[in-house]
């Protein structure tokens, strides 16, 4: 064929001598064009006999366009989080909210359809920022800040969830406010877990940060348990708690975070 491999491997960019570089470049261009012509000729001859081969080749030949090499849309982040929350809670449904209905109306719809809870995920800067948990039909409503979300698939050695109803572990919810918040979480899950699934969902409160984890466990002995994280993991921090349904205008706040309440490092509310 007369194509020296050496010439194709060497990149003209790497040669500092301009005259040499240009020479090599033009040589490579000619070789490339020649190559192209020859393959075309060959394909034409080959495909003259069998049109199926041509059809197959054309089907496989999908050029890269701006549309099909589109960058990943990060707005999916909030929705992804909502979907993972949906997967954690048994019998949960995910509905894209849209802008058509106000939250008050959505709450009405949910009450009419006898849903027990409504979770609203809000998103800022393409990240999930807040989670509002509304217990239907009479409240309470709690708003949490979401931070440090890690998808289950990004956790090393993660397991895959099963459809079993998980056990709920609530740790350290000791104050009165803590009890109500704990109840809010506990009421999201069915009261009777399916133990054969060996899945446990944990809400661990430490210094007012509520850490969410989901594990599969295995009792190794009377003293040891093996845990495999299923994920996702994220941290919640309570912003406010309302007695009734979500109502920012006239709702009664049972507790609301204010910066001036942080009087010392050892003052915690949950």
């Amino acid at each position, binding site marked *: 064929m007369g194509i020296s491999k050496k010439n194709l491997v060497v990149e003209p960019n790497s040669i500092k001598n301009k005259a040499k570089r240009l020479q090599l470049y033009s040589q490579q261009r000619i070789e490339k064009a020649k190559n192209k012509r020859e393959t075309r000729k060959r394909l034409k001859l080959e495909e003259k006999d069998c049109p199926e081969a041509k059809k197959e080749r054309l089907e496989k030949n999908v050029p890269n366009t701006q549309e099909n090499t589109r960058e990943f849309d990060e707005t999916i982040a909030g929705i992804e989080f909502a979907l993972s929350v949906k997967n954690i809670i048994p019998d949960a449904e995910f509905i894209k909210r849209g802008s058509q209905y106000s939250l008050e109306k959505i709450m009405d719809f949910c009450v009419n359809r006898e849903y027990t809870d409504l979770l609203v995920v809000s998103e800022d800067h393409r990240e999930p920022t807040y989670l509002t948990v509304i217990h239907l039909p009479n409240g309470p409503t709690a708003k949490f800040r979401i931070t*440090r979300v890690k998808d289950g698939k990004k956790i090393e050695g993660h397991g895959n969830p099963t459809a079993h109803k998980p056990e709920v572990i609530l*740790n350290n919810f000791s104050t009165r406010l803590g009890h109500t918040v704990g109840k809010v979480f506990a009421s999201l899950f069915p009261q009777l877990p399916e133990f054969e699934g060996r899945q446990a969902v*944990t809400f661990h409160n430490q*210094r007012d940060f509520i850490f969410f*984890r989901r594990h599969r*466990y295995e*009792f190794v002995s009377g003293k040891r348990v093996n845990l495999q994280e299923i994920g996702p993991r994220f941290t919640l921090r309570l912003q406010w708690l309302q007695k009734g349904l979500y109502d920012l205008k006239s709702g009664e706040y049972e507790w609301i975070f204010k910066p001036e309440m942080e009087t010392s490092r050892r003052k915690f509310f949950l």
Partner: protein
Amino acid sequence: MNNDEIVWQIVGNRFCSFRVKTNIDKLCRNEYNLTGICNMQSCPLANSQYATVKEHLGVTYLYVKTAERAHMPSKLWEKIKLPSNYTEALKIIDTELVYWPSWIKHKCKQRLTKIVQYLIRMRKLKLKGETKLVGIKKKTERRLKTREIRAEQVARLDKSIEKELLERLKSKAYGEDMPLNIKQEVWEQILADTGVEDQDDQDDQDDTELGELGSEFEMADEDEEEREYVSDVSQDSDSISDDFGDIEDFAQLTPKNKDYEYEYEYNQQKSQN
């Protein structure tokens, strides 16, 4: 005497303080202007017979001006309140401007439609509630972030979850019989463990009862109370071991050495087998 022609010659061709010139068009800033465009037909100054629709505080009015009142600037405009019902308002425009040029009638109706629509939109937006913007305080964000990481370290999540699960298993939360989620050998071990603990408790009770025999003779009436006190002590110890809420307490609550030995022996047996 007002002459519309003369007024327009001055206002239209020379200077008008209401006129706004853009690259494409000449517009009018006079609030009585029907169309907002600067031309003779829609100029409220150069037309002695003119009508327009205006809105004030959510109520729409029809403003009518005729040549008959041109000499009284204070009473120049006749202000007619239009009902909030759109179709009725249209009818009133029709009756008030019966023999008027159809162009003015049409434009008045168009303006009314526009006003009614934006009033509806305003009310809807008000009902929807405003979105409140909250600033992000970088310093507190940073502080919270470090605190969160520290809290996670302190929480020792895996350990506390393990403890809680074991506690559930031991307290028979998974059922009195062997639960589904456990191997038989582990269950046997747990049954053995709990049996040992029971024995310990009984020993404790025996000790205390022996110690208090002397006082029993002195106060026969308080006999039962004292016995209750004994059992309370053992219950207390149980309840402490139940409470695995605070991780910092774990160090003190590690199982007795005896249990450790037992486990060790058990493992040895297993390996020998």
